[in-house]
């Protein structure tokens, strides 16, 4: 198992390196001088030079990259032009709300998805099964920002059950979390159904029946647990999609998280913030995948007992 984990860590490190390269290169995609774009057309030559020197933009690319990485490790994430504040500070403020939103959204999505998928598999070819297939396709065909707007209109504006924006109380978290949960459960329901059916068709399920084990026990103790193992990896794989959805949902609900910070920074060309958030999100995804792999190896005895 050690070698398995070691291999995974190595792979995650390679991916993390690539991810940082991509985040770094974003700035250099800009047509023309990024500094001039950042400062706008009326910037004085003096200011342009100062900013260029601060970002080492006058140095060769690899030096720029290395300095950037070095500074990140030192905790110096640069300064936001829009807010004129350290990027680190901004992110620190925004991290909590984003974690609450994405975390609870993911939790709701996984619970609903696993539940629907399992029931659909157990009642295969029933109305429930077809409904599950249909509802998953239905939710995945709706842009999350539109779903957010529709829910906002119905429950916030018309029924006035929940506040329409901000993060003032528990009730203000319901709609954003529900939006993520409702839509993203579709990512888990179908794989869960497929895994469950796959496991139920295995020989050992027949053998369990042959020795007289109760149906309920076969389903919930054996089939469900076996089917759940691959879903752990699925969760990590779907994380980017869920984060992507959450970014837009933050904008719709005026949720003061990293997503709305990112969108605002992109629109105002606050590249330092954009780069840092990109790096932050992608490293989180890489870490989540690594975590899932390690978790997987602890849960699955076939890997755990491997030397």
């Amino acid at each position, binding site marked *: 198992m050690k070698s398995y984990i070691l291999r995974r860590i190595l792979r995650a490190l390679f991916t993390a390196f690539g991810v940082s390269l991509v985040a770094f290169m*974003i700035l250099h995609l800009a047509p023309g001088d990024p500094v001039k774009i950042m400062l706008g057309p009326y910037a004085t030559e003096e200011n342009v030079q100062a900013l260029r020197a601060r970002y080492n933009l006058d140095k060769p690319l690899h030096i720029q990259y290395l300095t950037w990485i070095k500074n990140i490790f030192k905790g110096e994430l640069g300064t936001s032009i829009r807010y004129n504040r350290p990027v680190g500070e901004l992110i620190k403020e925004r991290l909590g709300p984003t974690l609450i939103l994405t975390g609870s959204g993911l939790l709701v999505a996984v619970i609903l998805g696993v539940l629907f998928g399992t029931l659909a598999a157990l009642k295969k070819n029933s109305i429930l099964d077809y409904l599950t297939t249909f509802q998953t396709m239905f939710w995945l065909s709706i*842009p999350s920002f539109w779903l957010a707007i529709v829910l906002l*209109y119905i429950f916030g504006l018309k029924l006035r059950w929940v506040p329409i924006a901000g993060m003032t109380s528990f009730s203000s978290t319901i709609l954003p979390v529900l939006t993520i949960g409702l839509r993203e459960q579709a990512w888990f329901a179908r794989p869960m159904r497929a895994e469950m059916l796959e496991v139920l068709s295995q020989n050992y399920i027949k053998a369990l029946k042959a020795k007289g084990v109760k149906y309920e026990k076969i389903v919930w103790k054996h089939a469900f647990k076996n089917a759940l193992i691959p879903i752990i990896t699925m969760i990590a794989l779907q994380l980017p999609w869920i984060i992507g959805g959450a970014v837009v949902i933050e904008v719709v609900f005026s949720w003061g998280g990293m997503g709305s910070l990112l969108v605002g920074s992109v*629109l105002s060309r606050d590249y330092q913030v954009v780069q840092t958030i990109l790096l932050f999100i992608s490293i989180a995804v890489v870490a989540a995948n690594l975590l899932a792999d390690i978790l997987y190896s602890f849960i699955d005895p076939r890997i755990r007992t491997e030397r």
Partner: protein
Amino acid sequence: MISEDISYEQLKEEIRKLKRKRSSQANLVWKRFTKNKLALIGFIMVSIIIFMAIFAPLIAPYDPYKTSPLERFKPPSKEHLLGTDALGRDVFSRLIYGSRIALEIGILIVLFEGIIGISLGLVSGYFGGIVDKLIMWLVDVLRSFPIVVLALAIAGVLGQGILNVVIALGTVGWTSYARMVRSKVLTIKELEYIEAAKSIGESNLAIIFRHVLPNVLSTAIVMVCLMMPTALIASATLSFLGLGVQPPTADWGSIIAEGRRYLLKAPWISTSAGFFIMFTVLGFNFIGDGLRDALDPTSRRN
């Protein structure tokens, strides 16, 4: 193994025969697909949207760009099926014209990412080794970013406009194609007629173009249907966030964004635009689902 004493012509005939065997499998897939009712419904839905896009000027009751200050925020009625917007433009007409933009962008994105993905997948699968490792690393890296987030950043740096949206989503979204094509190439590489083609000394390039690519293409067409929903939703999201298509162009995403500002006063703007997106994407999802089932019937055995 093919014995050595048969002639070049015989060998070519063998290759043709083996290929025919594969095309009869394609027929079976097609038969399964056409039996799928949901796929048929999807096909009809997408056809409606395509029809709408092509004949927009004939179907749309009004000019989608003509503003009429006296007709602002008119709720849905006989004159304006889906009401009017803040500038008094007919929402229904704008949405019909919107299908043009949506399909245009969707097709461009899918083509763009398809070309990148298929080429890289072919190279990766066919040559293997360090090239394969490098490309797969790139796939891993790009998949660590949420598509919308990375495309948002790229489009933000490149600037607004349709072309930049296509470039941004294309450079990010090709990884699924590359993976699928690569695994397909890996199985094709083992087939007898590739062996045979190699044994008669065809070059790598010739083998890729004459034997591998045609086989991969069917997979790629399926991929296009599977990727279209992502492309449509992602481009709509960018427009919604103000980075894609710019007003006053009639685009579904930006119509939703405009309508959001008047949600209480004129909820029909945002909601009806969303229905159009949903309708189109659902159509493609039905088709994609049917194709997936047809290709892999074991996924819904008995």
